[in-house]
């Protein structure tokens, strides 16, 4: 298992994909935070950890961790490197397990970077405007931990989707359309159902949207998100297990 993880780690570090996605995290978080601070909701004199600019960080890591997860399998399918991968590690569940460890680790880094960018933006903006800003260290740490877990969850969902679908463009476009459009659409039409879906479950788990009556309690949201992760990973691993590589 250690050899498979080491191999996956080298794969991650020897193309520019992961750096491109990390740059995406920084840019998306920055743009989102900027937009939030310019918006009408900004309260002068607030606690850093309660600011909505962390929503920008969460959106950024959700998208980028999902794409990273999808690409971790579909890049190999697309370029044919899945053949030497499976020749070296014929136990396919072990390949999936090693990929899970590595994408979740990278997603955690994405999350920390996003949180730092978001917090940094807030601090600079408030300082520049001479507004008082307090920091609750414990609450901030808890929030960052939640963002890390959310990012890890989305990277694993992405790996499950990528392994199940196989085709890279279909998997990326499909999962992003679902994430950014379909689930909101379901939310508008069937709010009673939508709160159980992955993105809403993730939002519930974070608890930044506490006022939203359509979300579940944070603990329940976290449990539900874990269930979604399990379902997607099992589906992807099972599809790979039975797929002919030809």
């Amino acid at each position, binding site marked *: 298992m250690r*050899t*498979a993880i*080491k*191999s996956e*780690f*080298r*794969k991650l570090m*020897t*193309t*520019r994909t992961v750096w491109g996605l990390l740059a995406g995290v920084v840019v998306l978080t920055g743009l989102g935070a900027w937009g939030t601070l310019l918006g009408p909701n900004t309260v002068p004199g607030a606690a850093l950890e309660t600011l909505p600019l962390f929503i920008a960080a969460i959106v950024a890591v959700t998208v980028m961790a999902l794409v990273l997860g999808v690409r971790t399998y579909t*890049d*190999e399918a697309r*370029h*044919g*490197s899945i*053949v*030497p*991968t*499976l*020749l*070296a*590690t*014929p*136990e396919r569940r072990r390949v999936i397990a090693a990929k899970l460890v590595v994408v979740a680790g990278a997603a955690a880094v994405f999350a920390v970077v996003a949180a730092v960018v978001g917090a940094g933006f807030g601090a600079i903006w408030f300082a520049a405007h001479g507004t008082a800003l307090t920091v609750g260290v414990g609450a901030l740490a808890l929030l960052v931990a939640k963002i890390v877990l959310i990012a890890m969850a989305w990277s694993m969902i992405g790996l499950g989707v990528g392994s199940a679908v196989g085709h890279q463009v279909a998997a990326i476009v499909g999962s992003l359309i679902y994430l950014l459009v379909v689930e909101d659409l379901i939310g508008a039409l069937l709010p009673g159902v939508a709160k159980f879906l992955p993105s809403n479950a993730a939002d519930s788990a974070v608890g930044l949207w506490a006022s939203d009556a359509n979300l579940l309690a944070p603990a329940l949201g976290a449990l539900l998100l874990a269930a979604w992760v399990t379902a997607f990973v099992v589906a992807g691993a099972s599809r790979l297990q*039975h797929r*002919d*590589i*030809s």
Partner: protein
Amino acid sequence: MMSTIEAGPGPADLRHEAPGSPAIVARGLTKRFGAVTAVDDLSFEVRPGRVTGFLGPNGAGKSTTLRMLLALVKPTSGSATVLGLPYTSLAQPTLAVGAVLEVQSFHPLRSGRNHLRVLAAAAGLTDARVGEVLDQVGLTDAADRKAGGYSLGMRQRLGLAGALLGDPQVLILDEPANGLDPQGIRWLREFLQWFAGRGNAVLVSSHLLSEMALMADDVIVIDHGRLIRQGTVTELTAGGSHLRVASPDHEGLGRALIAAGLEPRADHEGGYLLESADPERIGRIALQAGVALSQLSNEETSLEDAFLEMTEGIGR
């Protein structure tokens, strides 16, 4: 360019040594894709110390068979073992079997060296071993460039380097000569013969007979997913001589030969092939029919003739 062929440090204690026993065994391998039967009840053995050619026209089921040996494709029925075990049961497959199935099986933005480092990590091998196989296939100078920019021949050699990483006892190569220039093909032939000469097994597929005639000791011939023949190249071409007769009056010669009760077989160059016929008798037949001959000679059966004979009359 393609430098010295030398032995890598073999992890001798991991070898599944069993002299004389076949390195690869296929038993009743069958693969159906929907209504299409790609491989049909195929059984064969590959011996160590020999280069075995896996021969058949395009679409005969060669690649599917090789992928079943390597557990990439699941057989509909039947089984295969490599060094006595199913591929998935090999404790360290990279140290037992090396395989190249496709011209491209690497990320184009990863360097050749990093591609091999990824594979080395999965097999628990060192980066030093990566340097050795790069030397072995003559790719050291290009190792730190992105593999997507490699020529076809360099891609083949990168694939081969990956297969050799674990210093395996069995090599399985699918159409390795594709994209190689004549020097590259010659290098490959010499390499495979050297590799087999150390007591290792080589199974190499091709649809090109001329290539196999020079490269292989044994051949397995398949068509439509079925075994046609298995034997040594010598066996398949042995007993093999025939009479070739040709005339500017192709039709007239054919009629005269049939009228004389013979069974002439038209070849691809406008002549006829006759099994076990007496040249003098053919000469007389032609004389009586008033047909001028442009050739009348005994020819040894080549592997190509043997192959065409074997696959003839099997309708697509």
